């Protein structure tokens, strides 16, 4: 994977959240699930459909482009073990499968963000963990 050139060992924030790019020119993909009965999609993947309340979902690889539904930014240190850059953007993104993902945004300047704008999935190095690995998360980036 080549998120950004780096000699460090890169590890995802959690296994099973997203797939690494399959090859050059390929993108990472978010791994979700979708209900075979009602069609609702979920991220991260879950066995039960929260709408039907039955075990009726199957894995689905989610689309990499979506539309920004809402957005904000974080301008101060946060709890929970995060040691990455500040400020950063956060938004909710509607993906083609009908799932609304709460996600980091690469853009934190809210004057450059607007509801409905097209955004695409990227992987983002976050910070070095205690084992010296570089943690990698996902974010959405405005499509120019």
């Amino acid at each position: 994977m080549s998120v950004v050139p780096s000699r460090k060992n890169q590890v995802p924030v959690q296994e099973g959240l997203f797939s690494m790019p399959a090859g050059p020119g390929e993108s990472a993909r978010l791994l979700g699930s979708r209900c075979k009965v009602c069609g609702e999609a979920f991220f991260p993947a879950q066995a039960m459909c929260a709408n039907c309340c039955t075990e009726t979902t199957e894995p689905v690889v989610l689309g990499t482009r979506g539309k920004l539904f809402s957005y904000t930014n974080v301008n101060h240190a946060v709890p929970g073990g995060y040691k990455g850059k500040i400020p950063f953007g956060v938004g909710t993104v509607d993906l083609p499968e009908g799932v609304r993902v709460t996600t980091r945004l690469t853009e934190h300047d809210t004057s450059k963000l607007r509801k409905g704008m097209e955004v695409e999935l990227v992987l983002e190095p976050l910070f070095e963990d205690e084992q010296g690995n570089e943690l990698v998360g996902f974010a959405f980036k405005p499509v120019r």
Partner: protein
Amino acid sequence: MRDVAIIGVGIHPFGRFAGKEFTEIGQVAVLDALRDAGIPWKEVQAAFCGNMTSGTAAGHRVLARVGMTGIPIVNVENACASGGSALRLATQAVATGLYDVALAFGVEKMPRGFMAMTSYDRWQMLQGMAINPIGMALNTRWHMDTYGTTAIQLAKVSVKSHKNGALNPNAMYRKALSLEEIMNSPMVCDPLRLLMLCAPDEGAAAAIVTTGENARKYTSQPVFVAAAQLGSPLYGTTFGTIAVGGSSGSARMSAPEVSVVTAQKAYEQAGLGPQDLGCVELQDTESGSEIIYYEQLGLCGPGEGGRLLDEGATEINGRIPVNTSGGLIAKGEPVGASSLGQVHELVLQLRGQAGQRQVAGARVGLSHTVGAGGNCSVIILKR
């Protein structure tokens, strides 16, 4: 089911009290409520304690020093709705005839700074997304985009809260602030600025309930629990799923929000509607929430929340006074106690004991809390 009335309320001021244990803070509120009701501890038959951060058996630790009478004590951790959940359990215990006198109280001594929430998945924490203002900012931005709500209207909420808080001896912040001071405070999560947010703090509040019939023996001014409802979000709401850490939402559905559904159930239980309310205490975690909940509780139509502020309708002397206590923005949020703090304010208002904050002629009041997990408590009180 029997009618249930509040015969006593108590409070330990909300604020920061270095060197004071949560047990002592809780005891002050409980003893205050016993004095207010005019009953000895030995008459209380069951107790329900709201608390989030004090660990195992918090309620037992508070009450063991009040008196060890062998009564059942139940600890409730339900985030912002903990106190409301405790009062609901106490009310149900009396309504069903299980007990005749029950205590509900909430107590909290919050760590300083942004709440280090455990209600998110680890991957969200590692991505820096495990802080509460994010979800509230996303909801507020959506409201601004959808209805044209402005940053000035957000600041007006905070102006009102601080103006009311200055009149409340139990509030943490007791100083009026100007619109400019609020608009010039640092941006936390756009569009929410520091002085638009409530701060975690310490405090406790308590209420003693008995049957409507018994209540007259203790007080000439019983306040009846007309409704006590608790709910969690339906799948497919615009707001609810952000509150449930680790889960996504639906871009295809727009189910009714948890506050809308829970308030509706409360209005039905009470046989009352928003037009009957004389005072409201609602979950103003930050000023965007206050505007959004005006609408979700039916105080105005969708998108009209900002206008209520422009018209001054929610001021103490307005058409529908909201957060006369100063709300969480001025009182701070001792999570387990905040809901019963609202009940304390409403009981004072309905008895005509709210001093400089007194609303003229209020007969019905509503308490609303909503928080982590999307849990939502709505309590309607009437005199």
